[in-house]
Every structure is written in C-alpha cells, then in structure tokens.
C-alpha cells in the first residue's frame, strides 16, 4: 500500500523540499525580530525536520515506523515548546509592552 506510492516520488524531491522549508524557517528565526514570528519560524524548521524523518523512514526502512515515531515525539516537544514560549512572550508583553527581541536585553526587570 504505502511502498507503491512512495516509490513514485523520488527521495531527492522530498529532501529538497525539506531543505527549502528549513531555509525559510531559519531565515525567519535569525532575521526577524518579532518574538511570535520567531516561534512560528521555529515551528517551520521542526516541520521540515519531520518531513525528512518521515521520508527517510519510508525510503530506507519501509514497513517500519521508527522515523514516524521520532516525528511524533518532535511534535510533542514542539507543542510544549510553543506553549511555554508563548507564555513567556505574553509575560514579557504584559510587563514591558514590547515584543521586539532586540529591545529585550535585560535578564531581570
């Protein structure tokens, strides 16, 4: 079932797509200054990593699901990270009313 469909898409296509998505996410995480947008970019990068995990799983060991289980753990950790990160951002906004990370330069306020 899955092997039939998987062999139709070359692995290189999936890897290139993952790399492009990761590059966009990396750009956003490095060069944007809005804290929420940086979190979104990090989610993009995690998704690109998930795509690579699933692709390698399907091409190198079809019939096994190790890569997909790694992806599930990545999703779990990403959800936790998003929750805590957004909570931190909300608290910073509440206390100092800024969201630009270039202006958040004190460890203790």
């Amino acid at each position, binding site marked *: 079932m*899955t092997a039939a469909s998987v062999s139709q898409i070359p692995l290189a296509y999936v890897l290139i*797509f993952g790399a492009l998505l990761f*590059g966009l996410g990396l750009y956003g995480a490095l060069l944007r200054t809005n804290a929420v947008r940086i979190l979104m970019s990090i989610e993009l990068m995690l998704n690109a990593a998930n795509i690579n995990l699933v692709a390698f799983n399907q091409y190198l060991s079809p019939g096994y699901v190790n890569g*997909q289980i790694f992806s599930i753990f990545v999703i779990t950790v990403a*959800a936790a990270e998003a929750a805590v990160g957004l909570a931190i951002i909300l608290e910073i906004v509440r206390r100092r009313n800024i969201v630009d990370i270039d202006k958040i330069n004190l460890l203790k306020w």
Partner: protein
Amino acid sequence: MNFPIVVNLYTLFFGLLALIALVAAYEVVTNRLITHAAFFLALVFVAIAGIFLLLGAEFLAVTQVLVYAGAVTVMIIFAIMMSQLNEIKIEECGRPPLTRRLWLKLVSSQWGLLPLLFAVVFALAMFGLYARAAWPMRALLVDSTGPATTNIELIGAELFTTYAIPFEVASVILLVALVGAIVLTGKEERS
C-alpha cells in the same frame, strides 16, 4: 544521489502541495501582519499533512492537523490577540537614503527576495551534502513480517513496546509545559 525527473500523479500532487507549503512559509516569514502570518502557518501545516499522506504516514498526517493546525496555530493566534502586538514598521522612522531603503525593502517588505535567496542557497548546500553522502538508495530492511498491518497499528505497537519509556517521558514534558504555561501567565498579586 541522483535527481531523476519523474512525472506521475504522485509527483504532481507532491509538487503542488510543496509549492503551497513553500509559498505559505514565505508569507509566514515576510508578511507584514503577524495575524496573516499565523494563518499562513496553518496553511503550511495542512499542506505538510498532505505530504505526509503522500508519503504513507497516515497517523502522522492526522496528528499534524490536530496538533499543529488545530492547537499550535490557535495558541499563537490567542497569544497575538491577548498581547495586542503591533509589528514595528522600520520604514516609518525618517527617510533613509535610497540604497538603504532598497535594502530594507529587499529584506523586510512584503516582496523581499532575501528569504527566497537564503532558502535556495541553504537547500543547495544541503543538496551538495546529500550528494556526497553515501547511503543505500534502496530499502535497508525488507518488510517480511507476515501480513501487512496498517500504519496506525504499527505505530501503536511500537510506541507501547519499544518506545514505552520515551512515551512516558513525553507525557511528563507535556505536564511540565502545562504547569509552566499556567504559572508563567497566571495573574500574580503585585506587592
């Protein structure tokens, strides 16, 4: 690593979904309004769920839609709403010289080329790396374990046998994130 040109229905749909995901990801990075960026992020997640389906990972596709498109995006939008964030516009402050303005436009406006350039250079570098790597291009392990089971069945069995301890640790991580988010955002009386 070879780069074959394959045209069939799977590749076509993969290309379509990949294009949607990349355009939406570009919008996530460059859109001026952060609310729009959040909705484009949801589009990226849905497109990636479709790609997971094409790759034969059904359970992961459903999880992707539930967790990412459902929970994470809604959480981000809630955070934007609750904090009433306004993106700071760089163009507003003064009138910089032309080259500087062009540079700013290129970097941070709605149609900046820099993210695309960055992504393409990164992908080319990664492709160079992939091309040098030596990995088996056909299956390492041949599935010979009797009747074919469904994807979700395999994942469930693996998750509760081989990966039982990481599974439990993941639940602890989620609990810590829950408590941490509540503690961080909870109202505290200021003395």
